[in-house]
C-alpha cells in the first residue's frame, strides 16, 4: 500500500495505534509497520507532522518521558478516543457499503 493510498487514513491509523498505549514517534511507526505486516509503505518523516497536528487539534497529548532517554511520548486524549470511535464506525459503514456494491 503506497503513501498516496494512505492519505486520509493516516490519522485514523495513528489514533488506533495510540489507543492501546502511549508511545513515542518511532514506536508508533514500528507499531504501524508491525500491525500491517509490513504492508504500509509509510514515509516515516510524515508521521511526525501528523502527530503534531493531531496534538494541536486536541486529539493527542504529549510529554517528555521521565526515565531513560528523553523522548516525546504521545497518548490519546478523551477527544481523541471519541474521534477514534467515530472514525471506526464511519470506516465500518464505508466498508460495508463498498463490499455490498462489489460483491
Amino acid at each position, binding site marked *: 500500500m503506497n503513501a498516496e493510498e494512505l492519505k486520509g487514513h493516516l490519522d485514523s491509523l495513528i489514533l488506533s495505534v495510540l489507543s492501546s498505549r502511549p508511545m513515542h514517534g518511532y514506536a508508533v511507526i514500528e507499531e504501524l509497520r508491525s500491525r500491517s505486516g509490513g504492508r504500509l509503505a509509510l*514515509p516515516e518523516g510524515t508521521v*511526525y507532522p501528523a502527530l503534531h497536528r493531531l496534538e494541536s487539534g486536541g486529539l493527542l497529548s504529549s510529554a517528555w518521558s521521565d526515565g531513560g532517554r528523553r523522548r516525546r511520548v504521545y497518548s490519546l486524549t478523551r477527544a481523541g478516543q471519541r474521534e477514534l470511535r467515530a472514525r471506526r464506525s464511519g470506516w465500518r459503514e464505508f466498508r460495508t457499503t463498498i463490499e455490498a456494491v462489489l460483491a
Partner: protein
Amino acid sequence: MNAHGGGRTGGQPGSRDTSAYLESLSRELKGVGIAGARQKRIVAEFADHLECDPNAELGDAAMIARTFADELGTAWARRAAIRAFAALAVAGLLFAAWGLLAARYYGGGRLAGSAAAQLVLGFGVVAGQVAFVSGGLGLLRAIRLRRQAVVSADEARVLVRRAGVGLFAGALTLLAVPVVASGAPGSAHPAWRTFGYVVCAVGVVTIVLAAPSVLASARVAPRAAGEAGDLFSDLGPLVPRWLVAAPWGFAVVIATALAMMLAASGALASDPYDGILRGLAEGTAVLAGFALLGGYLGLRTGHHSS
C-alpha cells in the same frame, strides 16, 4: 541515497551525516516559521528516531519542514480563529450587558467630553461590528474546514487575518467603553460606570490571552496550493442564489438592510431624522469596511493572497 532520504549519496550514515541532517532540518524549520521550543522538539524527536534506526528513511529535510508548516499552519490557523471568536464572544457579552444596562443607568443627557471622545466612541461602534463580522466569519471558516488535515496557504492566511482583525477591532471597541463611562453625565449610576471599567479590563485581558495563538499561526509559512474561497463559500446556502458571485451586490444589500433598520428604529423612537442619519452612517460604514477589508479578509476573491 542516504538513510535519511536527504538526497545525499553514501552508505551507512555516520554521526556526521545525522548531525548534518538534523542541522538542515532545524534550518528548514526556521525557514518556514517554526522556531523556538517547537523547532527544538521536532529536531529532538527526529534525533531520537535516528538513534533508534540510523537507516530510517525520514525524507528530505526541506520537504519535512514544508509538511510541518502545512499541517501545523492549518491546525494553528483553525485554533487561532476559534480562540479569537471565543475571546470576542466573552468580550461581546460583557459589552452587550454594559450597553443594555446603559438604558437604565446612563441617566440621560449627552456624552460629556471632547470631540476626540466622541470620535473614539464612533470608532468603537464601528470596530465592534468589524470584530463581530471578522471573528464570526473566521469561526465559520474554521468549522467549514475542520475535517481537513491541510488547507491551502491562502485559506490559512484568511483564517489568521480574520482572527487578528477580529481581536484588534474587539480591543478598540473595549477601549471606547471607559471613554464613555468616564464621559457620562453626573446622573449616571456609579456602579454602571465602574462596571464599564471592569468590562474593558476583563475584555482586554481575554483578548490578550487569545492573541498568542494568532501570532503563532501568523509566523508559520504554509505553502500548500489552492484558492481561499470567498464570503459565499463561508455562508453557503444562507446567501440568496441571485446574490452568489456578486460580493459587492451582497454588501450593498446588507448595508441597505442595516440602514433601513436603524431608520425604522429612529421612527419608532419618535426621532426619524436621527434614525435616518444613523442609518446613512451605518450603511456608509458597512460599504467602507467592505472596500477596505473585504479583500484582506477573504470576503471577495482575488485579493487575499499575499
